[in-house]
Structure formats: C-alpha cells, structure tokens
C-alpha cells in the first residue's frame, strides 16, 4: 500500500495534459516484479525477453499466463500481415480508440506506429488534437476512425450499416475483421494502461 501512496503523491506536473506523439514514460501504481523474481513461466508470459525492462509488462507479469495470451493476441492482430488491413490502418484504429477512451499514453505510441507505417502525420496530429480526422483525410481513414469509435462506445454502436458502407468503399471482409479486432483490442489495452499507472512527459535535458 505504501508504494501506491508514494507513486500517487509523485504524480505531478510532468503528467501530460494534451495528446502528443512525444515519447512518454509510464509509471505503475503497483510494484512490478523484479527481474530477479522471473522464472521461465514469466519469460514465456513476457513473450519477448526484452520486455523485462518494461515496468508495464513486469507488472502484468504478476499473472504471467494471462499476459502471454494477451501478448500473442496483440501480435496476431497488429503484426500478422497475411491479408487483411494494412498495418498503418490497424494502428490508426488503435490511435482513434485510444483518443476516444482518453488514453494519452496509448494514443502517443500508436500514432507514432501508424506514421512509421506510412500513415499521414498531419491527419494523425489533427486526430490527437481534436478527436477527429481532418475533413480532407482519405475516405479509408475516415471510415477506419469512425468505425473504431463506434466499436468503442458502450453499448457498442457498430452495426450492419457500417458493414455496408465499408464494403461499398471497397473493404473486403478480412479487412473489416482486422478493423474489428484492432479496435476491440485497444479497449482492452487502454483500460490496463489507464488504470494501473500514469504517463509522464520525457525529462528535458538541461544542458
């Protein structure tokens, strides 16, 4: 309990009050595992051993099997490029969901990923700043962001109307399925990041 209070009181002026593409830090409210505590079961849950450096994954490693199933789902949704939606649009969906739910940390990471995959930096910047893409964004992008948002409402607003419009715009069913998966997954990810810790802006170098 002391650790929660300590972290809570240090939650201060460095917490971002705007959506940003800056490289943010994330701090857990609960103590993560120490590297010395890890067994093979934990490394299996982390999937990539390098994630032992991440306080987020080291906190989730307290339930290593659940973390492992989460991470393998994540990777298939965002990195499996056998057919389906291009990666920049999957990352756009992740960004749009994170903006809608209010996860500043998640939105920063996935806006950068979308941009790196060829997504429009200008359109992503407007999405982060205003919550909507600019009117001159492509039809594909407008539809992806809108459907991501409808899927993220509670109760869900996604309906056959969206399926029809997506198909008319040329999306095939594998692409629509990827959009559903990416948007749904970020409802999972946002809630973990928002509720188990908090982000801070990078420390500015003084010299």
């Amino acid at each position: 309990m002391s650790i929660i209070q300590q972290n809570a009181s240090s939650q201060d002026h460095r917490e971002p009050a705007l959506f940003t593409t800056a490289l943010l830090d994330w701090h857990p409210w609960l103590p993560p595992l120490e590297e010395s505590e890890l067994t093979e079961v934990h490394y299996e849950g982390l999937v990539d051993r390098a994630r032992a450096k991440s306080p987020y994954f080291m906190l989730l490693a307290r339930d290593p099997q659940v973390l492992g199933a989460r991470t393998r789902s994540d990777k298939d949704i965002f990195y499996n490029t056998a057919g389906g939606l291009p990666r920049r649009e999957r990352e756009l969906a992740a960004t749009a969901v994170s903006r809608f739910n209010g996860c500043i940390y998640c939105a920063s990471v996935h806006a950068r990923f979308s941009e790196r995959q060829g997504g429009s930096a200008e359109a992503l910047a407007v999405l982060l700043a205003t919550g909507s893409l600019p009117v001159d964004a492509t039809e594909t992008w407008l539809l992806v962001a809108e459907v991501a948002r409808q899927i993220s409402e509670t109760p869900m607003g996604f309906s056959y109307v969206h399926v029809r419009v997506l198909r008319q715009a040329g999306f095939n069913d594998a692409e629509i399925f990827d959009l559903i998966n990416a948007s749904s997954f970020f409802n999972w990810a946002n809630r973990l990041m928002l509720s188990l810790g908090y982000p801070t802006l990078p420390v500015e170098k003084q010299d």
Partner: protein
Amino acid sequence: MSTGFSFEAEPAQDLIDYIVGIESGSWLDTLRRGRNVLRDNAQQSAALLLNPEQDGSFSRTERLAVASFVAGLHGEQDIYHLYLGLLERSGEGGALSAAIRQFVRDGRTRGPYGAYPKGALSTEDLNGLVFDVSAEKIGKRLSVALKHAHLLVYHPRDASAGALEALQKAGWSETAIVTLSQLVSFLTFQVRIIHGLTVLRHAGPAVGQGLPESTP
C-alpha cells in the same frame, strides 16, 4: 439461453464461436481462422481468467460474478446470460445472481466519459454515473471489485491510484488486482469481438467475395 457451454467440454468448445453461432467451415469460421493465433489466444484468455486451474486469491465464483456484471453492462444479452448461467452453477454463485442482475439494471449507462488531467483537455471532460455498489448482499470485497469494473467499463480515464487503494483496503492483493484488471479489460475486448462478429453474421458474406483468396 440454456448454457450448453463449458470450458471443460470434450471436444473443446470455442466460446466466441458458440455465442455467435459460427459453424465449422462457414465463412465466418474461415475468416476467424485467418487470425488463428488470435482465435486460440482469445479462448485461452477466457479460460485462464474465468476457469483457472489455480484461482489464487481470486475465486472462480468472484470471477464469474465480475464477468456477468461486465457483460450485462455492455447489453450483450447472450454472453451475459451465459456468464450468469456459469455463475449460478458455481459453488456459492447461485446466491449472487439476483444481486448481479440488479446491479446491471441500476448501473447501465453510456460510455466512455470522465475527466482528463487539468489543462486544455478539460473542455472535453464529461460527467457520468459514478456507481456505488452496495456491499449488503455480496460483501465488501466483491462490491469494491464491481465498483472498479464499472469504472473501467464506462469511465476508465477517471482511474486513479486511489481506486487501487480501495481494492487493497477491501482485501485485494497486488497480484489479484492485476488479474481483476485483466479480467475486466479483456471482457471489454471479448464483448466487442462477439458484437462485431454477430453484426457480420447478420450482414452475411459480401456478395461475389471469395475468402480469403480475393484478398488483394
């Protein structure tokens, strides 16, 4: 719905296929198997979270109570009733079911809402229901968990260290808090996959579209 689903059925049943009504070899089955690792791990996540071999300090009955509540809040009737059915057949769960149904009726609203860190985003702050769950019928420990679940479902950007502290005060260990957070967050994913696939099932396959060969 009569619950013909079990995590322990032989041969194994896929929960999402069962709820959506996806037949082996159908177009939706083909679509799901195009992301087979996801298909397997969505099932594994559900089994690990709801039917764990070792439930640690977070009992299976408590997990099913949380799952029923979260599915009910989303208004997804089939998965809600499946989880209620599993709850009613789990140990002491029968006594909880009526209370959960009442909490769902009282707690349902529309999300997401909540407040941002003070600053330019404050103009986007939205007030909404902050749901207090009575401990009277279900005990302090479970009532605090359900209150946390309501926060995560509808207004996750209001989450705070204080919310975790309330869980600790009600007897939740650090590891059990991580599992509870995974459970609620996973369920917000699972109900959306179920919803999305159900919408696709009603829409039917795209006319003239062969899958997955037609994928450009």
